């Protein structure tokens, strides 16, 4: 069993009117099964309302499946006495950094998690230092979070999760509110955690170019997993992605457009270098 495993997970939202009568049921996640290995970098794509955030919140036991089971590091997320252990194993980072930072000073904010876990003071400081270094924010440890840019705040949020020594980190659109350099900083930090620290990463995003280095991509639609594969396999299917309200990275789109207009190019080109190499072949 991997670090995160889901078996036939269903999640239903019950809509009620003002008197509390049931108006209807929305199935946000519909029989999803997946198995994510320790150390993997997994991306989840899907349009607004496809169920990806609902799925993510179940990994962290914020929501519990209506049917089916999710295991985090072998622990069933519906067992109430395991909740804290599950949240320490699978940490979560959300879209808006301003809703996640509580400390008046960066290092205090990052120390909040381990302090609540009862980690001895000396070790808290060690964890704070290593976490801030891992996301490249150590130089800002004495700053007030208010003085940081969006990308910097988001990296502090990630460090806060990291200080709890999770095996897995789930990021739900962490770059949606950031400017281009903030986006780049956050994605670089996340890739570093995965490659250097070996933390399992589950990244939900609407920016297609952020996931070209993922090991595996799941695409959700109507609560189900509609596609899965490597980024190359997924982004080779431009038409299908567009139907699912998604997109491909610009370089993939350009190659697709050139192919449509008669150039002999392969599907699923993900980087400018690849495109340059392929065009070179055509000129030879």
């Amino acid at each position, binding site marked *: 069993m991997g670090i995160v495993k889901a078996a036939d997970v269903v999640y239903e939202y019950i809509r009620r009117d003002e008197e509390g009568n049931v108006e209807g049921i929305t199935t946000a996640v519909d029989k999803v099964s997946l198995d994510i290995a320790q150390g993997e970098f997994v991306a989840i794509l899907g349009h*607004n309302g496809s169920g990806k955030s609902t799925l993510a919140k179940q990994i962290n036991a914020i929501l519990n499946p209506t049917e089916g089971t999710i295991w985090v590091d072998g622990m069933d997320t519906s067992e109430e006495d395991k909740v804290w252990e599950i949240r320490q194993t699978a940490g979560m980072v959300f879209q808006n950094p301003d809703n996640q930072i509580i400390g008046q000073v960066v290092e205090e904010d990052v120390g909040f998690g381990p302090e609540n876990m009862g980690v001895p003071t000396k070790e808290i400081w060690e964890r704070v230092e290593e976490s801030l270094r891992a996301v490249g924010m150590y130089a800002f440890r004495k700053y007030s979070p208010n003085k940081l840019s969006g990308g910097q705040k988001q990296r502090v949020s990630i460090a806060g999760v990291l200080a709890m020594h999770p095996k897995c980190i789930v990021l739900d659109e962490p770059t949606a509110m950031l*400017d*281009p350099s903030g986006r780049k900083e956050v994605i670089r930090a996340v890739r570093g955690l995965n490659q250097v620290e070996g933390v399992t990463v589950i990244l939900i995003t*609407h920016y297609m170019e952020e996931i070209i280095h993922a090991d595996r991509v799941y695409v959700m639609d109507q609560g189900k997993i509609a596609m899965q594969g490597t980024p190359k396999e997924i982004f080779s299917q431009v038409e299908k992605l567009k139907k699912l309200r998604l*997109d491909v990275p*610009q370089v993939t789109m*350009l190659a697709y457009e050139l192919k449509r207009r008669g150039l002999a190019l392969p599907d699923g080109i993900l980087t*400018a270098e690849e*495109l340059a190499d392929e065009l*070179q072949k055509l000129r030879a």
Partner: protein
Amino acid sequence: MSIILDHVNYIYGQDTPLAVAALRDVCLQIPDGQFVGIIGHTGSGKSTLAQHLNGLLRATSGHIYFDGEDIYGKDYDMKKLRSRVGLVFQYPEHQLFEVDVFSDVCFGPKNLGLERREVELRAYEALRKVGLPDELFYQSPFDLSGGQKRRAAIAGVLAMKPEVLILDEPTAGLDPRGRDEILRQIKKLQTESGMTIFLVSHSMEDVAEYVDRIIVMNRGSVLFDDVPGEVFRHYKELEDVGLAAPQVTYILHLLKERGLDVDVDATTIGEAAETVLHALGR
């Protein structure tokens, strides 16, 4: 409605120890019906600039003219200005509050003191303009999808019949299709109704695709002000101020380095495909 900003400065917390200059000597001239993109990193002054355009913030010094009239003039009707310049904030769906979508869109024009018939007519037109289907009109705004909510909120501003529309990151958090749909509707407002539009955005690709002109803000000043092709030619300087060029620009620069004679000023996929085919002699 033509707009002129003449040496506009704005200082937050003036005369306090915390004073910060958010706009520095901004001079701009925006003709009628232009689609203008405003880009800049977090804290560069984009939103402060946007809030000056409808009088929500008052410049510390300098002048702003709408159709030649000084909006800080003694007799200028600021309330009227706000109905002529519509401002759509970030995450506008957080401001939806009525029991159904239609009533929510009616709220603005109702407050203008218009007759009920006119109010409803405007709400109907505005909802059509943003492409929201009729069957959603009497649903609770909270039951809509993210993209639909966003469009309902934009309709609320359009129902005021503004001549200028300012949108602060209208596509943040939307899926790619939702993003394209909203931007296409906005473009249509410009081409069909001749509205002047300001799009504040963090997405260089979106800006490159849709706008006529880009204003780059940095530390409260205008760093560049030109057509997309020209602005993104300075991609190195843009990176220095926390921005970037669209991915297409980087692709074309690499192809050029590798000996393909492409035009690096192309900023959209369509333009890039053209220049690549041309360079290959196809």
